[in-house]
């Protein structure tokens, strides 16, 4: 059936601010859906309160509503324009909940708007645990034995019947809040009480815990003809017991026979077909008993889910894009496979590579939090790696993490105490896979490791292979000694040159030189949905060490954009927004745009954004090899946050051109000493400061600059381990803490300017002219990390003089630092005196917010200025904002019950939203402003 022609305009609901468990993958799905609908000539309106998204950009949709995700906002949009249909399945649980709520208020009926791609009854059924359980049983499938309890006594009774270990899941809470595993009777009473209290209906479901069973996820698509395909099957390396969002996952399934898989496929299809009539995406989770291969259903999500972005990137099949078309009435077989261009969209992708997804945690930001993994998702981002074998993909995933690891161990970060390691195998935390290898390295039997981790023996044996290879490698003294075949085998298994170098105690360079001498070079393979069976049209590549290279460089001039890697606190979706705009500007300027990134949740890694996509770690060795192959005009590092910027030095050393601001300027801005000298020369005030290498030095400096002082390690992101201290005792503790956790780091000590206001400027400089994109004043006083502050655009209380001074200083510094492109300046203002706190020669977290608030394509302009193809005077910039825009931080504290929720110099927010106000009488602003004094009293 071709599409429903009565639908001419569609509203897509976004997922709002980034929180743990609902991150930028929904920006990817929303953007894809919007583009897909516009291809059909549909007028797309979009609502999302998150300004850092690509979906809320004029390039994505026809009408953007940066409004709070409330029924009132929906009514406002429906009043303003004719909306024929609303697509609520692209914005996670948030969008669905809003659609349901609006439905309850009769909004859709009143405005004659139909819901597409969703069946509300089906949603209701899957969310009501007891009803869903019964539904699955009625279908003839199995679920874990479970009982509902509404009281303490009922709970006790249930535990008797079900037996330990069991799971307590409070009803109607999000993301596993209040849930827990109970291993024995003694823990049960407390945890049951906690669960009952967490549930608004005072109800818990008590499940038999199938700990250690293998866990699988299937991504499905169904059309209105009731035809279903499985797009991707994902196997969790970490078995049942660890939230799938916190598990290392692998595709295709590595340890699943066809008999077991087909049973799973049949059950998934049966379930999806049993859930109403909707056309779109669906995600099903199963647990499989490794002994008997018995299968039980865990859950089903009848919408585009968190894992569908991963499935899309893993297979090349654009799930959200196709799901949007299905919502319009198309049948799968009427659509084409977007990768091959000439085969059917009704098919199931097949992989000739291995995908490893590894979560990215940020526990160091949540001091005091429980770092064990379990029912609740705690990771803040993820990376995906592609290899021609599991080990290659696994080690590439480690290299993508940006936690200073060079692969899975063999990099100086191993643990050596067996007892500590064994404890960590059972008490699972973010480092389990590393500890698993440490245990094998120290000779702990595979069986013991398997018993403690419940990880499938195949994975353990694979990792054991690495241990054996390292033992073999240790026999050699210099790189020249390593036999060619063995050298190649090491690279095939994902070892970085740095790991080989560390194992032999050599310089990385020596290993690289020898490798190149032997001709062991990366080749690139295409992700094509079909294992090479059909010719593919899309330039989506990954590296490996196979014989044939498929990535043939064009003869066009090329620019490479470095992405920002995994999302984490302080560096998230904002930088993906910047990268996507950068890519578009590069294309417009007539270059071939090449994207390198490893974050599967992003829009920048969509295969049709850049001219060429390398899904690779933002890790020097990989990037260098791509540059050697592509020979670009230069690399843009200003758009990918600190991740990309950190590589600038390597580029400069290797004679690779950095587009825009040079490395020496970036270094000048980053280096505290020379930067302060520069400020002094320019006669720009800054807080007194000092750099300490030891605790003694720190004490001297602190007393010299006078308390209170701000203590922090140099070169960190988002104010990590930053503290404000008021006396010697506190200082000592803070400094020792930094040295303990970051031994090679220096400590920066700044005079803390009390009772000051903070403001920041984002600007573009082209060598002649400075354009101030925006000046934001923070509502919270200095001392709260800028990422956690509510920022008002433009300033609301600062004097004209202070504002003029900030602009003046920005211009002075942009000129002195020879900025070409973006600069972000942070200021502290006391009375009318302005102090420079820092200068960042790159896109900042706030650039997307400003671009949205003023409705100016700033990142596009900035990129063209960087490239040197335009001067600022070429653009006719018109800022468009009535009143003020406020950037409001959003936190995910409910995932970390024991964490200190007080804000300070260390950033803790996971996302942000934009609120527009007409004037300062706005109640929302007055409320925020009144909290300012509360901070001051502390």
């Amino acid at each position, binding site marked *: 059936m071709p599409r429903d022609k009565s639908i001419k305009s569609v509203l897509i609901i976004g997922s709002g601010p980034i929180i743990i468990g609902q991150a930028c993958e929904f920006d990817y799905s929303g953007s894809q859906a919007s583009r897909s609908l516009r291809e059909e000539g549909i007028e797309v309106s979009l609502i999302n309160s998150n300004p850092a998204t690509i979906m809320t950009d004029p390039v994505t949709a026809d009408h953007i509503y940066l409004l709070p995700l409330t029924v009132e906002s929906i009514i406002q949009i429906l009043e303003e324009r004719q909306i024929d249909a609303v697509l609520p399945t692209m914005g996670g649980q948030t969008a669905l909940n809003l659609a349901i709520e609006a439905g309850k208020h009769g909004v859709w009926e009143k405005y004659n708007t139909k819901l597409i791609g969703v069946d509300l009854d089906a949603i209701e059924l899957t969310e009501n645990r007891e009803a869903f359980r019964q539904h699955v049983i009625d279908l003839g499938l199995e679920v874990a034995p479970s009982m509902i309890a509404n009281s303490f006594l009922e709970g006790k009774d249930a535990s008797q019947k079900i037996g330990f270990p069991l799971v307590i899941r409070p009803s109607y809470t999000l993301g596993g809040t209040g849930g827990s595993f109970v291993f024995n009777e003694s823990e049960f009473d407390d945890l049951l009480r906690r669960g009952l209290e967490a549930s608004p209906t005072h109800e818990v479901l008590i499940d038999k815990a199938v700990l250690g069973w293998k866990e699988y996820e299937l991504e499905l698509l169904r059309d209105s*003809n*009731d*035809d279903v*395909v499985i797009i991707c*099957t994902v196997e969790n390396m970490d078995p049942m017991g660890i939230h799938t969002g916190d598990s290392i996952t692998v595709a*295709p*399934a*590595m*340890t*699943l*026979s*066809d*008999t077991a*898989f*087909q049973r799973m*496929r*049949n059950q998934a299809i049966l379930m999806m077909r049993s859930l109403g009539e909707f056309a779109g995406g669906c995600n099903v989770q199963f647990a499989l008993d*490794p*002994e008997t*291969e018995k299968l039980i259903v865990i859950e089903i999500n009848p919408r585009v889910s968190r894992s569908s972005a991963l499935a899309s990137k893993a297979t090349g099949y654009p799930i959200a894009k196709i799901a949007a078309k299905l919502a319009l009435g198309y*049948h*799968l*077989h009427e659509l084409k496979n977007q990768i091959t261009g000439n*085969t*059917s969209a*009704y*098919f*199931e*992708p*097949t*992989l*000739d*590579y*291995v995908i490893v997804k590894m979560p990215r945690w940020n526990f160091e930001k949540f001091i005091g939090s429980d770092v064990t993994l379990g029912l609740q998702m705690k990771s803040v981002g993820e990376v995906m790696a592609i290899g*021609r*074998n*599991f080990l290659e993909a696994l080690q590439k995933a480690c290299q993508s993490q940006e936690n200073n690891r060079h692969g899975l161990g063999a990099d100086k970060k191993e643990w050596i105490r067996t007892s500590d390691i064994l404890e960590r195998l059972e008490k699972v935390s973010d480092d389990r896979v590393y500890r698993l290898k440490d245990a094998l390295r120290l000779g702990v039997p595979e069986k013991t490791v398997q018993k403690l981790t419940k990880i*499938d*023996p*195949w*994975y353990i*044996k*694979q990792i054991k292979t690495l241990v*054996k*290879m390292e033992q*073999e490698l240790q026999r050699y003294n210099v790189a020249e000694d390593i036999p060619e075949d*063995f050298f190649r*085998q090491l690279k095939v298994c994902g070892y970085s040159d740095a790991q080989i170098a560390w194992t032999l105690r050599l310089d990385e360079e020596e290993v690289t030189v020898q490798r190149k001498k032997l001709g062991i070079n990366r080749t690139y*393979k295409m992700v094509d949905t*079909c*294992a*090479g*069976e*059909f*010719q593919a049209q899309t330039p989506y590549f990954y590296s490996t060490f*196979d*014989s*044939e290279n498929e990535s043939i460089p064009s003869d066009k001039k090329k620019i490479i954009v470095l992405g920002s890697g995994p999302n984490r606190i302080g560096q998230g979706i904002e930088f993906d927004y910047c990268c996507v705009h950068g890519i578009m500007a590069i294309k417009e300027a007539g270059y071939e745009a090449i994207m390198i990134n490893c974050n599967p949740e992003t829009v920048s890694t969509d295969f049709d954004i850049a001219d060429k996509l390398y899904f690779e770690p933002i890790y020097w060795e990989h990037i260098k090899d791509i540059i050697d192959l592509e020979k670009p005009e230069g690399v843009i590092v200003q758009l990918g946050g600190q991740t990309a910027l950190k590589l600038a030095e390597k580029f400069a050393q290797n004679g690779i051109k950095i587009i825009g601001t040079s490395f020496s300027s970036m270094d000048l801005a980053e280096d505290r000493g020379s930067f302060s000298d520069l400020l002094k020369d320019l006669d720009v005030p800054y807080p007194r400061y000092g750099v300490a290498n030891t605790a003694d030095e720190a004490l001297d400096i602190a007393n010299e600059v006078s308390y209170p002082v701000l203590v922090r390690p140099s070169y960190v992101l988002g104010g990590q381990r930053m503290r404000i201290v008021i006396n010697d005792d506190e200082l000592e503790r803070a400094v020792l803490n930094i040295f303990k956790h970051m031994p090679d780091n220096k400590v920066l000590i700044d005079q803390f300017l009390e009772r000051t206001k903070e403001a920041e400027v984002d600007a573009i400089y082209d060598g002649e002219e400075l354009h101030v994109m925006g000046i934001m004043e923070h509502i919270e006083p200095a001392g709260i990390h800028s990422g956690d502050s509510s920022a008002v655009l433009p300033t609301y209380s600062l004097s004209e003089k202070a504002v003029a001074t900030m602009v003046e200083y920005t211009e002075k510094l942009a000129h002195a630092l020879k900025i070409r492109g973006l600069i972000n300046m942070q200021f502290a203002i006391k009375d009318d005196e302005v102090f420079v706190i820092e200068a960042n020669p790159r896109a900042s977290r706030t650039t997307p917010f400003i671009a949205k608030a003023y409705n100016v394509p700033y990142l596009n302009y900035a990129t063209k200025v960087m490239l040197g193809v335009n001067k600022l005077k070429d653009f006719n910039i018109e800022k468009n904002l009535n009143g003020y825009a406020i950037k409001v931080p959003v936190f995910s504290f409910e995932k970390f019950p024991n964490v200190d929720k007080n804000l300070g110099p260390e950033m803790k927010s996971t996302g942000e939203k934009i609120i527009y106000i007409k004037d300062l009488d706005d109640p929302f602003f007055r409320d925020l402003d009144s909290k300012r004094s509360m901070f001051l009293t502390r």
Partner: protein
Amino acid sequence: MESVREAILLLDDGTCFKGHAAGIKGTTTGEICFNTSMTGYQEVFTDPSYFGQILVTTNAHIGNYGTKDEDEESKKIQISGLVCKNFTDEYSRTMADQSIQQYFEENNIVSIYDVDTRAIVKHIRDKGAMNCAISSEILDPAELKKILDKVPKMEGLELASKVTTTEPYTYGEENAKYKIAALDFGIKENILKCLSERGCYIKVFPAKTSYQELLAWKADGYFLSNGPGDPSSMDYAIETVKEILNQKAPVFGICLGHQLLALAMGVSTYKMHHGHRGSNHPVLNIVSGKCEITSQNHGFGVDPKDIEKFNDQIEVTHRNLNDDTVEGIKVKEQKAFSVQFHPEASPGPHDSRYLFDQFIQMIEN
């Protein structure tokens, strides 16, 4: 590290790939083909339709879950050799019986791994199916080429008689509701299972069984099995099918059986460029308007042009959504139908199992 043995893969056009040896030491030849399934390697290896072929698996790892006797589609490995990327004899499946290396040793299979399988697949995709040789004892391509040159071309090759049962045998419950006569051209175990589960007692006959002999068993329906080789070289079977059709008896054909049904109706078959092999082939059921993901394994097909001439006698019931090839036919005014793909799956999706029900219904009516 254990020392690894070298092996080479030589294609008929002279292309040579170096890799490592798995299975037993030796030399093997056959027509090269690739299968894109991500699960079910053991079922593929034991599918008699692969007789005479060297199989390239596109899935990155082979051997991870070992092998299990129950998962065999016939009593032995039928492929002439395996080409894969990563071959592992370490497996984790609790219910498995042995490793793939042991299994290959038992079945005398020569294999090569650590080769760029994707490059090979692209080569076959562009150049078409061709003969090839794997050797772990003759590592000089020129020497190996001499052996390869003696291998006959697949086109025109009759292979079903090499894999068929020598003696008739029965499968299922003797007192089952329906009696089915199955002509074995290389039948997969799961076809028998699917029929038996639906109340059939099946007698499996050797490929060259005469129609008279079949008739003597008084079957309610006839089944034409899958199998290897060029269907157009199987005059004996085409004749038998013609006679069955003359009797207007219910007939169901799968894969080679489908091609034989077409040939018996006068429609020609052809050698495909490189065939369809995998578990993800999209097929549209033209009659119902529904789609199914199918398991496929064929290098020959029913000529889509030629079949148009038979519009009055044959209805095309299924089409491939990727390349529009003929996937299913029904003989008009008759109880005879067939499909190119494998509804019994194993490996692959079970979407098309309804065809067995359709066969039973046909017998019922």
